[in-house]
């Protein structure tokens, strides 16, 4: 195995009009590792992970995935990249007019060229893995938020991605269902899935992350293994952020 990171960002910049959302971001994500991005609202975490699959186009810098550099201006290149990198959103974003099964077979049939039978067999196996095999024929609106998010995770997995990006996957959920979704994510991490996770679940970050990255004002302030970053943060900015969170952060530590 090569030591080269699966995802590598160098000097990434993003502006929205006069607002500089990202300043010269350098980030490496090793294959099979879990990188958790934390930081206050507006710090650029969601913008950063959207730059990894081109939902937000970086203005400058470079991105390479699995050793291939991505031409930032080429929509076709982004579209190909997106079949290799999955994404899970805060609001699940399941297609409400399609059954759970169709949600999961649509892209694999259109983009991976799977037959309907192959795509459905794969979808049912993935649903069984997250305890939702019995929901295959239901429409998303009939599912709880936690169930929808688990479907969204396996919908991303159905594309057999090299990595999955998570944008605050539990922020819209009630505490009971958060546990189910985090369990699924722990399972993925154990299986060696490469994950980049934006979250406010500090318990999850501490337990599952290989590396925690703290962002503020569109820049990476510091990063390191969870024990170091949570236990002995170097920067005052990190210390201030963590001290605000600490009273609630352990509550959901499963």
């Amino acid at each position, binding site marked *: 195995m090569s030591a080269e990171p699966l995802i590598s960002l160098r000097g990434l910049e993003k502006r929205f009009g006069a607002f500089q959302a990202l300043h010269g971001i350098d980030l490496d994500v090793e294959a099979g590792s879990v990188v958790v991005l934390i930081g206050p609202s507006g710090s650029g975490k969601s913008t950063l992970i959207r730059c990894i699959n081109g939902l937000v186009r970086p203005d400058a810098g470079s991105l390479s995935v699995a050793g291939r550099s991505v031409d930032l201006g080429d929509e076709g290149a982004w*579209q190909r990249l997106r079949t290799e990198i*999955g994404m899970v*959103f805060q609001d699940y974003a*399941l*297609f409400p007019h*399609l059954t759970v099964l169709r949600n999961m077979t*649509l892209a694999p049939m259109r983009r991976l060229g799977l037959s309907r039978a192959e795509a459905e067999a794969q979808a049912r196996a993935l649903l069984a893995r997250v305890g939702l095999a019995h929901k295959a024929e239901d*429409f998303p609106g009939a599912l709880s938020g936690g169930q929808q998010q688990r479907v969204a995770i396996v*919908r*991303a997995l159905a594309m057999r991605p090299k990595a999955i990006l998570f944008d605050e996957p539990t922020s819209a959920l009630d505490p009971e269902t958060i546990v189910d979704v985090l369990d699924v994510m722990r399972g993925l991490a154990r299986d060696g899935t490469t994950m980049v996770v934006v979250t406010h679940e500090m318990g999850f970050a501490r337990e599952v992350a290989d590396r925690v990255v703290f962002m503020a004002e569109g820049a990476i302030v510091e990063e390191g293994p969870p024990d170091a970053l949570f236990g002995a943060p170097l920067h005052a900015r990190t210390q201030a952020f963590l001290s605000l969170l600490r009273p609630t952060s352990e509550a959901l530590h499963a």
Partner: protein
Amino acid sequence: MDFDLAYLMAQGPALMRGLWLTVQVSLISIVLSVLVGLLGAAVRVLEVPVLDRVVAAYVEFIRNTPMLAQLFFIFYGLPGIGLKLSLFWSGVLCLTLWAGAYQIENLRGGLATVGKGLREASYALGLTPWRFFHLVAAPLAIRVALPAMLNTAISLLKNSSYLQAIGLAELTYVAIDRISMDFRTLEMFAAICVIYLALVLVLSFLASRLEFRLNAPFRH
């Protein structure tokens, strides 16, 4: 009071022939105008360069000129540049272009309700903008736009009576033709109003069945 039912019954076969032509020209135009609406709305929403301007100009032109003038332009004007269509297809073209412009706007309204989240989710799965449009956005937009789209279809059906002005022997043409010979205005106009009403009720019923079926995913 002099309502001659026997006279009306005798006109039945002629009215039925007119009705059949009205149904044909309207149904074909309704289907084609929905296709125009979908294509035009896709071009507008996906912001296809140049074409989106063309579509916007087309919608403005249709909305701001009388349908009768559009009809005369197609039937009497276009032959001047070598484009000669039959009566029937002139009628279909006129109704399709007229209603298509409104269907574009109806669908644009529906598309505005499809959230950015679903677009991002589609793109994140590697789907192209066009696939997002026809697999996700359009099916959702049609559900929202259906009542407005039905209104446009009803207007199209009623406006098919304009086609008598170029001599297409649809329902209204048949009535006027008979009146010019027999002067039975009361009977004939009453008859065609009842027939148009019945047609619109059938159309509304079909649309409500469609709406019921399309909304199945949202009933829990």
